[in-house]
């Protein structure tokens, strides 16, 4: 039975990653699936069903956030995994790495106010039909913290139109509360196929009430449920 098989998660680790442990703990505590840290020199991700690219300051974020990490050996395997339709979630620095590697369109500029900002943020679930958001209601307002200095999403007009047309905008900051000046209040996007998501806010920091919000938990249950459905197993309650 497929239902007996567990979903395997990888958390990539680059020199300077620092939300790797948080992602690892979040997978364990929310859905109890097996997780491995995968060091950036690895060239094989075939054993994993989902890959998390965590936040932090890979390579010190020198030059541009994510610029140096895009050349790490593991990135080839990550691109392959993306093509194979595996679930890939880039959070914060992970989002920056995915855009630098062109797995997602656009780029992340410095916050409009030029300051690093860390606080709770209200997000709108714009597209709840991705494998990452299916356990949310459409347009639901959720509470997920941000912590970044360069989260100002930018893409050109044509790309933005495409994102809108293809429902690739997954999360928006609540209107009037855009913390970084990003285009169209974008907080997270996905690729055309919908299996690669990048977002600035940190769902792994909102997985139980002691942390101030548990709204991030359903991102992890969504991924598991999407995978189970795809592999024909029972879906867990949301």
């Amino acid at each position, binding site marked *: 039975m497929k239902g007996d098989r567990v979903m395997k998660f990888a958390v990539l680790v680059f020199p300077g990653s620092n939300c790797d442990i*948080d992602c690892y703990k979040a997978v364990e505590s929310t859905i109890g699936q097996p997780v491995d840290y995968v060091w950036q020199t690895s060239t094989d991700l075939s054993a994993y069903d989902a890959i998390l690219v965590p936040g932090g300051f890979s390579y010190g974020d020198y030059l541009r956030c994510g610029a140096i990490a895009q050349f790490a050996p593991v990135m080839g395997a990550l691109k392959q995994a993306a093509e194979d339709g595996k679930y890939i979630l880039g959070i914060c620095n992970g989002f920056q790495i995915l855009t630098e590697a062109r797995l997602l369109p656009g780029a992340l500029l410095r916050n409009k106010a030029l300051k690093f900002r860390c606080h709770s943020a209200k997000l709108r679930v714009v597209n709840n039909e991705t494998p990452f958001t299916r356990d949310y209601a459409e347009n639901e307002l959720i509470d997920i913290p941000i912590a970044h200095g360069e989260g100002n999403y930018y893409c050109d007009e044509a790309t933005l139109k495409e994102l809108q047309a293809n429902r690739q905008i997954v999360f928006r900051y609540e209107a009037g509360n855009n913390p970084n000046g990003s285009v169209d209040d974008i907080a997270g996007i996905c690729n055309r196929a919908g299996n690669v998501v990048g977002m600035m806010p940190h769902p792994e920091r909102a997985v139980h009430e002691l942390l101030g919000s548990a709204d991030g938990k359903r991102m992890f249950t969504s991924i598991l449920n999407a995978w189970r459905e795809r592999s024909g197993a029972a879906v867990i309650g949301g």
Partner: protein
Amino acid sequence: MAQQLSAAKEPNAEQIAEQKLYKQMGVTDDEYARICGFLGRKPNYVEIGVFSVMWSEHCSYKNSKPVLRRFPTTGPRVLMGPGEGAGVVDIGDNQAVVFKIESHNHPSAIEPYQGAATGVGGIIRDIFSMGARPVALLNSLRFGRLENDRVRYLFEHVVSGIAGYGNCIGIPTVAGEVMFDESYEGNPLVNAMCVGLIDHDKIQKGVAKGVGNPVFYVGPATGRDGIHGATFASEELTAESEAKRPAVQVGDPFMEKLVMEACLELIDSGIVLGIQDMGAAGLTCSSAEMASKAGNGIELYLDRVPQREEGMTPYEMMLSESQERMLYVIRPEHEAQARAIFDRWGVICAKVGKVTDDGRLKLFHHGELVGDMPVGALVDECPVYNPASQEPAYYRENAAIDTLRYPEAANLTETLRRILASPTVASKEWVYNQYDSMVRTETFVRPGSDAAVVGVPGTRKALAMTTDCNGRYVYLDPAVGGRIAVSEAARNIVCSGALPLAVTDNLNFGSPEKPDIFWQLEQATEGMAEACRALETPVIGGNVSLYNENAKGAIYPTPVVGMVGLVEDVDHITTQGFKAEGDIVLLLGDTKAELGGSELQYVLHGVTEGRPPELDLAVERALQQAVLEAIRGGLVASAHDLSEGGLAVALAESCISGGGIGASVALETELRPDVALFSESQSRILLSARPDKADALQELLAARGVPCRAIGTVGGSELRITVNGKEGVRSDVAQLEKAWKEAIPCYMK
């Protein structure tokens, strides 16, 4: 002694003696004579350089040792007191908390971003060099008035330097304090504290154990960073000397992250015999101290030190303060194992020396002996001074000042708004929103309550932490101010639901060579020591920063207290915000007519005068014990300690932190209404409790002899305070919040 070639231009031993060049390094004639005695000859340039830093106040505590002896440093939970990189306190289950505070005042005054950043980097190294995993950062800051351009520049860049370093390395910055007063103009205070967790059996020491063992250098290459500012008058300012000028230290948090992970992995492997960070005076201090603690000697081969710049001399290498470097000792057979770890993290590691049995620090450069000094003399034989102490005139004069001599504040609502908008009291969101306070996902109480609370992974325990000190009180009466600093820190810890464990302190004072400043130092440490004894919070480490002076004189004496407490169960975590409509508001403790050093005095009349509030340690202790008991008993909905701005500010903050919920309060008092609202009497706490728990809570407090009065209820969207039936304060909480939140951003636009 062989002549060294590379440093041919450096003055020789005779020139140093004749021209008294040692004086430019801060070495006195007497100290110089003493050094000659230890060496049995005149020191050469490297040697006098090494002695000058080892015998500086920063490394030797020559002016502060006697006062530091007053602190209680032991207790049932103290596993390691002052002496090592940081103190260690037991928290049960074979786990311990490690913490320390350190100042970077002077570097931050020159280059605020890098000064503050490297201050954070330095204190983190102190923690992981003990083998502990750093889990939280705090910072205590003092600046002049924000009206001043340079002050705003310093404030802006100090904060972003702290953020830049802590955020990048991935350690949450969870608490701190910022105060503004012209006393700190030109000499800001930047104190950084780090807290770490460790298992008992992993605790490391900075000792050079085992004669013959190799000594390794880890971290980025050494440059001419922050070298002892002693440049020579004889040296003309040529292009060459300009290039040799000591450079400001620049922090590289990414590098520190790699060094930290690699060192923790190395320590985990169990092969480390001794490890120490290179802090102030870099290679000099770390090697001499490690040798001294083991009763051994060390030989260093300086040409093997990784170098960033060409032509570096032994003097420059020994005195460089390049950041992110460590020194460790292992057995020779473990070398390959250690190397593999550093290679994987991409960190440079070089064998630069050897442990010897002769008790000497010997420096070799390309095979030549260029320095040879007894380790004992460097570390332990610096003369200890007992500077003259005298009660200053201002202290006596202040006794006579009647703090009620100003007319009563007419409009209490407006007064509250003004005090809330005073930068010292105003919301520090502008500061702490720049800090990643959540990384590691253990931050259960973020900045914005009395103390931050950080979980102990895998347990139901948590650590509460805070820094506190009101320099105005300490200035007005150092003994009382010292007592208040410790008590307030402990009160903040208790209000968060934790038992205060221990203290790390940072003594920021003016020049100890001035008798009235030394008097402040003596009095303040005495007051702190009394409080530490009464509250059973021993001092497990700290830092001394003297000579904090500007054109107008010394800063306010500012002995910052960093404290950590233990939350036994996360269910006990309590925050300052009001929780629910209908909850009963209780005021614990007595309010007296105490305006000396208060925010009211400063904001309304622009003065800091009189005597500060009194503090009775027995009363304080009873209050704290009773409140902790009540919190653990599940009787308390919110707790907030009363500090700057008194009762009115505490009420406003509890409303704002409660999400904008209001409160209705009626005070009966014999005091003048403005005094009742803004007096800063000590040993007071504001609690709220569910109506069904309020009686039990009051009974418990009464039984413990703690004065307690129900003064109102939570609810609505307004804060209303009547005094003896007459309206005092009435305002929408939103209005108060606006004044409080927008004050600092408004200056910083």
